[in-house]
């Protein structure tokens, strides 16, 4: 009979497991084929690589300043100048970029990026003393970096052991030593510490998250620079290539130590020593993605929420205010984190993106929003890389021949996609080209 013959010929090409029934089945199949949540198109590639470049430059400042605050400013009771990063931190060699770095897989210089230095000198206005740039708010918006840090600090338990360690006796003792050393000869602050020891401790915990995020971004900045360089050399053929580069990057630095050292009078106090074995992947990257991409918190100024009416989830893990769910349209409202970031990236936007934005929507006058949507697309790609990296680390290869393994992968992907089933998720929008 004919049906049997058809069935026989089909078995060779037949996938080992039936297609998914998930609402995002198409995207799941794409992920199973080694793709990204972001559709593979030339424009998407241009957009995300361009924005990675624009993101990397301010990020080069963020990580340096975050570490400067965590390690040098520390508990300064009046940290008015915490964004006035020292030359030492500006010149601080990146551990993963430049010839001095141990892992020489990303090119790039060891010091701050030249475009960043140029911007710091001139800003949007003109060359003038740092303090005037600061007061005129013509500078890198470190407030955005701090908002990310706060999201991580506030959401806390998101995997990894970092947060548990902050409650340990060892951490308490380390922090105590550092606090006493920092305020030596300052009876007022020492008295305050005596009165409210938990307050100081809480501040130190927050500073540990400064260090955590700084160390995380120290890696991401050169990765994004490298991607931009590779793209310019014609190295990426599509969005999946860009994603796979990120997957490899995640693995390459997965074991980078996460620590918090403080320098008081030139002496190093190890509040979180490297020997605790905290890793970049588990203690920084995954919590960062969870806190900033998925959860964060509603920021002030654009919308009021009525918690009693259930407009805010009861549990922190149900929060969906991250970039993957964000409404980009409020970008431009004064002082909110998305505006701060988009403004930062706008300064370093590559020419091809400027051109692209001119052709769409309101052209130059709403490029902050177009930029925001591009950023959203690019972060869906980064999240795809994280999902693929987790699949690779915890589950099975995509070309595995065991159906049980493939089903396990499928379940994992479906579980990940479940997080985007709520109406706020922008996953359906980024599938289309006219979401700008």
């Amino acid at each position, binding site marked *: 009979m004919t049906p049997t013959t058809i069935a026989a010929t089909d078995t060779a090409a037949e996938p080992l497991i039936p297609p998914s029934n998930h609402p995002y089945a198409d995207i799941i199949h794409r992920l199973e084929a080694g793709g990204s949540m972001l559709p593979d198109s030339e424009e998407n590639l241009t957009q995300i690589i361009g924005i990675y470049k624009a993101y990397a430059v301010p990020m080069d400042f963020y990580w340096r300043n975050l570490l400067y605050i965590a390690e040098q400013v520390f508990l300064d009771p009046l940290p008015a100048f915490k964004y006035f990063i020292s030359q030492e931190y500006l010149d601080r060699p990146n551990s993963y970029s430049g010839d001095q770095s141990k*892992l020489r897989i990303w090119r790039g210089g060891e010091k701050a990026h030249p475009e960043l230095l140029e911007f710091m000198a001139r800003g949007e206005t003109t060359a003038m003393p740092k303090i005037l740039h600061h007061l005129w708010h013509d500078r890198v918006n470190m407030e955005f970096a701090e908002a990310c840090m706060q999201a991580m600090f506030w959401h806390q338990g998101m995997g990894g052991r970092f947060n548990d360690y902050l409650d340990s006796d060892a951490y308490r003792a380390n922090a105590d030593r550092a606090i006493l050393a920092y305020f030596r000869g300052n009876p007022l602050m020492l008295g305050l510490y005596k009165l409210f020891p938990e307050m100081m401790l809480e501040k130190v915990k927050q500073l540990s998250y400064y260090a955590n995020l700084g160390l995380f971004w120290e890696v991401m900045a050169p990765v994004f620079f490298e991607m931009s360089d590779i793209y310019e050399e014609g190295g990426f053929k599509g969005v999946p290539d860009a994603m796979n580069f990120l997957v490899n990057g995640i693995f390459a*630095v997965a074991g980078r130590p996460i620590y918090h050292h403080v320098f008081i009078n030139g002496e190093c106090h190890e509040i979180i020593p490297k020997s605790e074995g905290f890793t970049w992947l588990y203690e920084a990257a995954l919590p960062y993605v969870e806190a900033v991409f998925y959860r964060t918190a509603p920021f002030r100024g654009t919308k009021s929420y009525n918690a009693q009416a259930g407009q805010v989830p009861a549990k922190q893990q149900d929060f969906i205010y991250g970039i993957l769910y964000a409404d980009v349209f409020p970008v431009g409202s004064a002082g909110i984190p998305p505006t701060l970031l988009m403004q930062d990236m706008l300064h370093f936007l590559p020419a091809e993106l400027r051109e692209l934005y001119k052709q769409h929507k309101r052209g130059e006058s709403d490029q902050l929003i177009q930029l925001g949507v591009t950023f959203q697309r690019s972060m869906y790609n980064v999240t795809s890389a994280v999902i693929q990296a987790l699949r690779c680390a915890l589950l099975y290869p995509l070309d595995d021949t065991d159906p049980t393994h493939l089903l396990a992968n499928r379940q994992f992907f479906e579980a990940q996609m479940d997080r985007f089933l709520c109406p706020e998720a922008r996953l359906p929008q980024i599938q289309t080209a006219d979401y700008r």
Partner: protein
Amino acid sequence: MATILETAKAAGVFNSLLTAVEAAGLTSALEGPGPFTVFAPIDDAFAALPPGTVQTLLDNPPQLARILKYHVLVGALSRQSLLEQPEWSSLEGAPLPIRRDDPFEVKNATVVTADIACDNGMVHVIDRVMLPG
């Protein structure tokens, strides 16, 4: 019989693992009386990791030790006894799931050769480096 490390050395397919154990400073611990159960990834398993992964870990002993400890259980456990529990607590702290009995799979690794008895424990050869999480 030999110790776990001696057995590994003799097998000749665990060079990466042995280098890692040494770099992580776990040699003396694994030379100790134990007993331990070690899931030993073969060289190919380390080679399958993306470039730079192993290098970064070798540069940072505490972090490397953490990954290696995930491959170690307390007590000498044979395949038979491992299958009695769905999950074991690794030396690293994170749980290590036993996923299948045939083929014998621990987490996402497949046990190539099980039940190599040593003086201070048991070795199961696996085809993949396991990562906690």
